[in-house]
């Protein structure tokens, strides 16, 4: 991933539950206003619904639910950050719901510190690091978006696919 290796990288920051987070800007395709999002019954809880992105149907992920943060109150400044995420072998496009958009920041390798072992609002595994910004030396949490949406979550989404009662586990005991 280029944002970890190149000299100075640009990040887009956004606000989630009062905290500022950032994503590598190359991941961000566009930012759009929060409009009608159609709820999808049965989808994972952290999927807020789907919306129409110029003709294709794109899911919106509520990161606050996903990361276990206090939930978002929709305001006029709420928006959707459309990102591209690598899942297995395919790139998928999805929207991230954010309270507000922050700023575009540039961070050199010396500005990024590894995340502390604990104390961050989200799990350390979901972070690429902490970026120090400006003269105030404020910290911005750099999200590892691939990890946030990877692996087991996809599994849990597919687990919903099997209609209840069709699993054959309960039968194995009887075969012998």
């Amino acid at each position, binding site marked *: 991933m280029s944002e970890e290796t190149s000299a100075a990288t640009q990040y887009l920051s956004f606000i989630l539950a009062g905290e500022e987070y950032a994503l590598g800007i190359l991941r961000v395709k566009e930012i759009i206003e929060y409009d009608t999002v*159609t709820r999808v*019954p049965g989808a994972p809880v952290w999927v807020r619904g*789907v919306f129409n992105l110029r003709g294709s*149907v794109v*899911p919106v992920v509520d990161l606050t639910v996903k990361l276990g943060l206090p939930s978002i109150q929709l305001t006029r400044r709420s928006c959707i950050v459309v990102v591209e995420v690598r899942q297995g072998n395919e790139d998928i496009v*999805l929207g991230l719901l954010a309270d507000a958009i922050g700023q575009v920041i540039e961070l050199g390798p010396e500005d990024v510190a590894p995340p502390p072992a604990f104390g961050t609002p989200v799990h350390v595994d979901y972070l690429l690091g902490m970026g120090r910004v400006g003269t105030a030396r404020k910290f911005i949490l750099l999200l590892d978006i691939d990890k946030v949406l990877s692996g087991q979550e996809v599994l849990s989404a597919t687990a919903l696919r099997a*209609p209840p009662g069709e699993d*054959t586990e309960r039968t194995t005991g009887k075969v012998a």
Partner: protein
Amino acid sequence: MNRVILARGLLLPLASMTPELEKIHALFLAEAEEQLATLEQGLLALERTSGPQPLASLLCTLHTFKGGAGSVGLTAAVELAHLLEDLLTLLEARAVVLHAGLGSLMLQAVDVLREQVGLEPASESAQRLPAQEVRRLLESTLKASQPAQTRAAAPERPASPAEPSAHREHTLRVGLGRLDRMLDLTGEIAIARGRLAEMLGQAHRYTPQQLLEAHRDGDRLYLDLQELVMKVRMVPIGRTFQPFVRTVRDLGLAMGKQVRCELSGEDVEVDTTIAELIRDPLTHLVRNAMDHGMETPEVRQARGKEPTGTLSLRAVHDAGTLLIQVVDDGAGLDRERIAARARALGMLGAEETPDDGALLRLILAPGFSTAERITELSGRGVGMDVVKRNVEALRGTVSVDSTPGQGTTFSLRLPLTLSIIEGFNVAVGAETYVIPLQNVLECVELPSAESRPGRTGVFSLRGSALPYLRLREHFGLGGSTPARENLVVIGHERGLAGLAVDTLLGQGQTVIKPLGRFCQGLPGLSGSTLLGDGRVALILDVPALLHQVLQAAPPAAVA
């Protein structure tokens, strides 16, 4: 690029694969695939009835293939094709007689040719010979039948099979007539748009009716164009059926069974995606029929049947859907064995005796297989549930019908196209849902006096009980139920059921959009579509929705 790898194995050096060459190669591949398929069918036909006519056309096809292969530098394929050509000439001159062994050899040669040009071989039987062996056998057959003629033995060249290209371009041949009509329509639409734009520019001079009429003119043209584009995606199902003639022949020989493969409805047109995705389920069904259904000639004769069995693949348009059937006249399904197996697996209680249809449906359940021995054909740990899953992924259904001693019929019912359906729009609160029109039978009002609160209820529809599901509760949408609800009556396997919704919005064409990774394959939903105002509406998967309700109902209520 796959095609570059392909080139490395052949004579073209890697660097010489220019884009132009790549195009030529892709064109050759598309043509070769068709030629080899024709060749294969010709050979199979030749086995059934030998006459001079098919041979001439076979030689012609082979010659064309040889030319194409030569032009892209596939020497090994050219040489093998040449041998095959010689052999066919001998057959034509009646110098050799076609027997099953020779037939197999020639068919295998076609497979080797497929391999050599970079296509997947059609047959995957265990006794497939390597390219060199096929070549050697062809040469020795030729030599044995014409001792006078001396052929200079071609130098032994290690045949390097090209890697089968996984990502071959998906192309479609389209009749020029259709393309011309499409072009006409786009032109007409352009004119209609221009006229409408002009009228709108001076809107004060026209009445809304006139403007609407102008818009409708354009709309009609657009619908024509849409229909035409859909038609262009349609291909005859025969192309999907044809390879199974070979499969049946090879399997029959391998298992010592005499089976004739009959095709019907080959010119029924289906969406090209469906034609492609139906191949796997069909392979499964054909193999299953050959392995379990068909008896050996001796058994058949002992049962008073013709020694040669028949396996038919049929396609027919039926009530807006495509019906594909795999029919065998074999032994039929053994109900007792299915019941015993189901009990062993715990799918069926010891006391339970399901009706015939339900019993037969059990073989489509995951993990179900009645095969006592593990054979090369069917013992690969996959059962008929694969068929069911694949067909359901295409929004279709599978049903089984079987008469003991007389055979089994598998019926696959599929939608004609995957991209557009006729939908019926309904609203619940602020949400809009689309019910595929084929599921909708009628709509009735559900007066508040007859509605019960809760997720499900029963309504008296002209005196008979109609169970219904309230979408608002089922999907957990919240909000309050309006005083007057509407019921959409839908048909399902066991009869009628209703969906209670707030309002009926009417029918229209619905372009299906996939729901994307995180929301895919959710029970009760088959996809989504975009509404006129840009919002996303969900398309209901009616069978799955009802299945969910039946599953959730307490067992006593189901029985």
